[in-house]
């Protein structure tokens, strides 16, 4: 027995000594690896990637006309690949590479200094980096919903590459990476501003700049396969546990509460949309309940680290009804063609969630407490408002500029004939369905 133990432990301790010597300088003094936290974060990362491929991919695919089904999936998949590379090469550094007010700098470009044993808190920095990568993937992918069925693929790639660099990474840095918005004590646990308002506003601007699809709104452009959409919504729901609970970066009580409030808010929002639609139109729809669920997921995102279950119930209910109105009445009234309601659900849901986070984080309303420096709900809500405003303005302006540049370089939109034929054939020489 003793011999066996010696054989097991002696080599390990020698290995440990060797590794200590190899440990990169960027590991902070006092960081210890927690295998529990790491195991959860590895899982959460996979869950968030699952949200994009295939969750969001299917959610959107089902909502377009069949002649465009592949184009949407292709866009989501291509964005996944492109953002992964950009993030690894310089995106992660821009967002998290340092403490500058505006950006994180290029110190961690090419993931320099991040080795096998480099830690970020209690988890390997590789895991933190990849986890954040999945956020940098889904945010641009969400925008696809606004320009579906009419954007040129090359323009989309170019736009997304620039957008993640100039809009996503900086805002991510400002809110989470040590940038200037940190001083305001804004509560954004998992990305209400960074992900959803960002994507929603970019979506709105893109929809406006690109213009409406030919034939909109008189022509029937019904979803060709709501079954895909509902399946995708389910995948988004499950994956979102990685998105919200994973944002704690640890396997602890806060993560547990984040999961619980995510579930409650989503359910409340789905019911909210469903009942609102039932009252307005006389029948509840599958597309409606699925959309309501996503609205709830979006709204609870910034709140998931600081509100309680009853606060989540309220946030979900408001978001469900609010996004229902945003994706229906508001869109029809203003006439913009946000094809798959990127703004209606993510923009509006994100704004609702960000503001209500300021309300329901208060301990008096079941939350875990307002941010440092805020003693009243009003003060916190104002901070939330600042976060929303900065995101909206910066994103809108930058997105507009990027679109104009891309338009000048390659042209944003496919031709009328290509649009009529369907992007699957005209952009990709493929059919989504070859049914016999």
């Amino acid at each position, binding site marked *: 027995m003793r011999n066996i133990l010696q054989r097991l432990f002696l080599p390990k301790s020698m290995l440990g000594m060797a590794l200590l010597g190899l440990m990169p300088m960027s590991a902070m003094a006092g960081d210890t690896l927690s295998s529990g936290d790491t195991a959860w974060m590895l899982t959460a990362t996979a869950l968030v990637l699952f949200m994009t491929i295939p969750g969001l991919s299917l959610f959107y695919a089902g909502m377009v006309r069949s002649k465009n089904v592949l184009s949407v999936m292709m866009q989501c998949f291509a964005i996944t690949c492109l953002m992964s590379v950009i993030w690894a090469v310089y995106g992660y550094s821009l967002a998290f590479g340092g403490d500058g007010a505006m950006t994180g700098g290029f110190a961690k470009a090419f993931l320099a200094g991040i080795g096998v044993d480099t830690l970020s808190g209690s988890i390997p920095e590789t895991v933190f980096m990849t986890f954040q990568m999945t956020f940098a993937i889904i945010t641009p992918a969400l925008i696809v919903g606004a320009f579906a069925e009419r954007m040129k693929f090359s323009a989309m790639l170019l736009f997304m590459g620039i957008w993640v660099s100039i809009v996503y990474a900086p805002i991510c840095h400002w809110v989470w990476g040590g940038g200037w918005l940190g001083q305001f004590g804004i509560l954004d646990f998992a990305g209400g501003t960074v992900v959803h308002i960002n994507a929603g506003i970019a979506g709105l601007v893109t929809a406006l700049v690109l213009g409406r699809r030919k034939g909109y709104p008189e022509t029937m452009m019904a979803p060709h396969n709501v079954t895909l959409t509902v399946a995708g919504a389910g995948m988004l729901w499950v994956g979102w546990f990685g998105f919200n609970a994973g944002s704690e970066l640890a396997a602890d009580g806060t993560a547990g509460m984040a999961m619980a409030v995510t579930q409650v808010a989503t359910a409340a929002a789905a019911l909210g949309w469903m009942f609102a639609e039932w009252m307005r139109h006389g029948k509840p729809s599958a*597309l409606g309940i699925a959309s309501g669920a996503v609205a709830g997921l979006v709204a609870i995102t910034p709140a998931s680290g600081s509100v309680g279950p009853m606060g989540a119930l309220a946030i979900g209910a408001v978001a469900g009804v609010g996004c229902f109105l945003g994706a229906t009445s508001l869109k029809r009234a203003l006439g913009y063609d946000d094809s798959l309601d990127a703004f209606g659900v993510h923009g509006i849901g994100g704004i609702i969630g960000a503001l209500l986070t300021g309300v329901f984080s208060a301990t008096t309303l079941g939350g875990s407490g307002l941010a440092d420096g805020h003693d009243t709900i009003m003060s916190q809500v104002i901070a939330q408002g600042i976060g929303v405003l900065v995101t909206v303005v910066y994103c809108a302006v930058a997105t507009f500029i990027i679109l104009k540049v891309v338009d000048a370089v390659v042209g944003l939109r496919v031709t009328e004939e290509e649009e009529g034929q369907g992007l699957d054939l005209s952009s990709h020489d493929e059919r989504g369905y070859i049914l016999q």
Partner: protein
Amino acid sequence: MKLVSAIIKPYKLDDVRESLSEIGVQGVTSTEVKGFGRQKGHTELYRGAEYVVDFLPKVKVEVAIQESMLDQVLETIANAARTGKIGDGKIFVQSLEQVIRIRTGETGADAI
């Protein structure tokens, strides 16, 4: 020889096929079609956008028959396909010039 085409409600296809079988009609072709007559369309709702759908799914059933069976076939199809509600469909009768069985080369009455 006659070619009888009937546009019927899709869920009536089995009834029509069985009834035709009972009176000795062997071959039937069916196609999925869309159509409307005086039956109004219905509305479908997607994220608050209501669409009025005029074209309704129907099935077209075609049979090639001897002229002597015509009245019997018309009555059989109509009885099997009728629900009494609007949208039951229509039956069209055309003269059939020639029929050929591909496998054997038989023509005319032998091919029906």
